[in-house]
C-alpha cells in the first residue's frame, strides 16, 4: 500500500474519477478510537490503516467487539476519531466540523444497517424519497424508478416497514442508501437479521450494484459465505486489521 503515501488530495473537479483510478476513494491512517467507560478509556480501534479503491467491494470480518462498527462509523463521519485520519474522496474528516461531516455524509456516504432502520411512520417510498429530499436535489423520479426496479421493490412501495418482510425492508434500506449515488456504501452486517434465502438475495444485489454500477461497498460481516461475495476481505482483531492482502 505504499503508493497511497504519494497521493495528493486534489479538488474533486481536477481528478479523473472511475474504476481505473489508483487513488483510494477511502483511506484511514493510524486510526484510533477510544471510548470512555467511566474513568477508563476502552480502545475500540488501535491504529487502523485501510485503503479502498473506487469500485472496490470490501468485506471486513472479525469477532464481535473487535471494532468493526466503530470503524464504519468513523468512515461514515458519524463519530469523531480519537487519533489518526479518515480521508473520504480526498476530504480529511478529522479536520472537519460536525456540520461539515454531516454534509459530506449527505453527499458521499450511504449506510445500511443490520436492523434496517427504516423510519416506521413512512412508507417504503417515503423512506427512499426522504433521502432524496435530504440530499437536496429533490425527488428524482427517474433515479427512483431505476433503483426501486433494480431492488425489486415496485409492488411494495406503498407499504409501511411493519408490513414488509425483513428481506424487503433491507432492500428498501439499500435503495435509500444508494438513491443519491453515494461514492461509498457502508453496510454493517446487512444480513445479520435475515434468513439464508433473504441474505442471498441481499448479497446478490450488493454484488450486482458493485459489478454493474461500480458502486464502492464496504461491508461488515460475521459470515464467511457473505464475505465471499466481495472482491476483497480483511480481518480485524482487537481494533486492528490483521491482514489486508487482496484476494485476487
Amino acid at each position: 500500500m505504499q503508493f497511497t503515501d504519494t497521493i495528493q488530495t486534489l479538488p474533486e473537479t481536477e481528478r479523473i474519477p472511475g474504476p481505473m483510478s489508483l487513488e483510494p476513494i477511502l483511506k484511514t491512517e493510524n486510526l484510533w478510537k477510544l471510548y470512555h467507560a467511566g474513568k477508563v478509556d476502552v480502545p475500540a480501534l488501535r491504529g487502523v490503516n485501510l485503503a479502498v479503491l473506487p469500485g472496490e467491494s470490501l468485506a471486513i470480518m472479525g469477532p464481535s467487539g473487535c471494532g468493526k462498527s466503530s470503524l464504519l462509523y468513523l468512515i461514515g463521519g458519524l463519530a469523531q476519531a480519537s487519533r489518526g485520519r479518515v480521508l473520504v474522496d480526498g476530504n480529511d474528516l478529522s479536520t472537519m466540523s460536525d456540520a461539515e461531516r454531516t454534509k459530506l455524509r449527505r453527499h458521499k456516504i450511504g449506510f445500511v444497517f443490520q436492523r434496517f432502520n427504516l423510519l416506521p411512520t413512512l412508507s417504503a417510498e417515503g423512506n427512499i424519497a426522504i433521502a432524496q429530499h435530504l440530499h437536496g436535489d429533490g425527488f428524482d423520479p427517474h433515479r427512483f424508478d431505476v433503483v426501486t426496479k433494480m431492488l425489486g421493490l415496485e409492488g411494495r412501495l406503498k407499504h409501511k416497514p411493519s408490513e414488509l418482510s425483513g428481506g424487503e425492508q433491507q432492500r428498501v434500506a439499500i435503495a435509500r442508501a444508494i438513491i443519491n449515488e453515494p461514492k461509498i456504501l457502508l453496510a454493517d452486517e446487512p444480513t445479520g437479521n435475515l434468513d439464508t434465502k433473504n441474505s442471498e438475495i441481499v448479497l446478490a444485489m450488493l454484488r450486482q450494484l458493485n459489478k454493474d454500477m461500480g458502486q464502492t461497498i464496504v461491508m461488515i460481516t460475521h459470515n464467511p459465505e457473505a464475505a465471499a461475495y466481495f472482491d476483497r476481505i480483511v480481518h480485524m482483531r482487537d481494533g486492528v486489521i490483521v491482514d489486508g492482502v487482496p484476494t485476487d
Partner: protein
Amino acid sequence: MMGHLVYRNLLHRPLRTLIGMTAVAVEVALVVLIVGLTSGLLTETAKRIEGIGADIMLQPPAASIFLGFSGSPMPIKIADKLREMKYVQSVSPALLQFSSSGGVDVLYGIDRDSFRAVSSGFVFLEGRDMQGPDDLLVDDWAAKAKHIKLGDKFRILEHEWNVVGIVEHGKGARLFVPLATLQDLVGARDKASIFLVKCTRPEHTGDVTEQIRHILPGYTIRPLKDFLSLMTSTNIPGLEGFINAMIALAVAIGLLVIFLSMYTTVIERTRDIGVLKSLGADKGFIIRALLAESAMLCCAGIVLGVGLSYGLRAAFLAAFPTLSILITAGWLLKAAAIALVGALFGASYPAWMASRKDPVDALLYD
C-alpha cells in the same frame, strides 16, 4: 417532504396527538371565553347604562364604574341643587343595591316619574309601571332567565315583590323597585347611589359637568355618551391582571402538554433521529421537523379550540340567557397566536435536545 414526515409522525400516535390537540384547544377556548365573557359583560353593562338615555351620571367620589359596588350613598338633597342648574332639564336619583341571592343582581331603586323624565321611559312588553310600594319591574332577559312571569311574587333582599311589569332590556338594571321602599329596606333613608341628569340639549353636557364639578368637587361625574369606552378591563382595577393571569394559566397548560408530548416523541424516536442523521440530516432539519410537528399539532388544536369556544358559548348562553360572551375575530387570532408561540416554545427544548443527540448512540438506542 418534511410536511409529509411530520404529518405521518402525528398520525403514528393518534392518542398522543389528540391529547396535545385537546390541550391546545382548551387553551384557546379558555383565552377566548375569559376575554369574551369579561368584554361581553362590560360591553353589555355599558350599553345598558348608555341606554338609560340620561346625559350625565353623578357618583360619589372615587366610585367604581361597576355601579353595584359604588361607595357610600349621597344625600338625596343633591338632586335639588342639580335641578337649579342652568341647562339641566331633569334629575333622577337612584339607589343601587347589589344582591347575590340566587345569582348576582343589581337592583335599581328609582323614582318613577323623574326616571321617566331623564330616560325616554320604559318600553312595556307586558303589564304596567309601578304604583304600589312593593311593585317590581323586570326586564325581558331577567324574566326569561329567572322564569318570572307577570303577576308572580318574587323574593329578593328578603322582601316579597309583586311583578307588575316586564320591560324591554337596556335601561340600566334588570330589576327596578320604588326608591322609597328600597331606601327603607337597606336603611338608606334619603340617600341615593347615583343621580342621572338630563340636559336641555346633549350639547350642554360639558357645561353642566363644569357646574357640578364646581359645587361638588371630587365627585365622580361621567358623561354617559362614552360610557362604553370607559367600560374596558383596563379601567377596572385588578381585572386586567386577572385576565392576564388566566391567559398565562391557559398558556401554561398548552405549553406543558406540548412540551411533554414532544419530549416523549423525541425519546421514542431516538433511533429515527439517528437514522436521519446517518442520511445526512443536519441539526437544522431535526429542529425544523420537530417544530413543524408541534406547529401542525397546534394548528389542529386551534381549529378545535375555535369550535370549542363557540360550542361552549352556545351552551352557556342556553343555560344563562343574561350572560353575554363576546367572541371577536381579533381575540380568536390573538388566542391562536398565543397558542402557536406557546407550542413552538414548548417544543423548542425537545427539538434542541434531539438535534444534539449523538448519531451513533441514537442508532444503538432501543
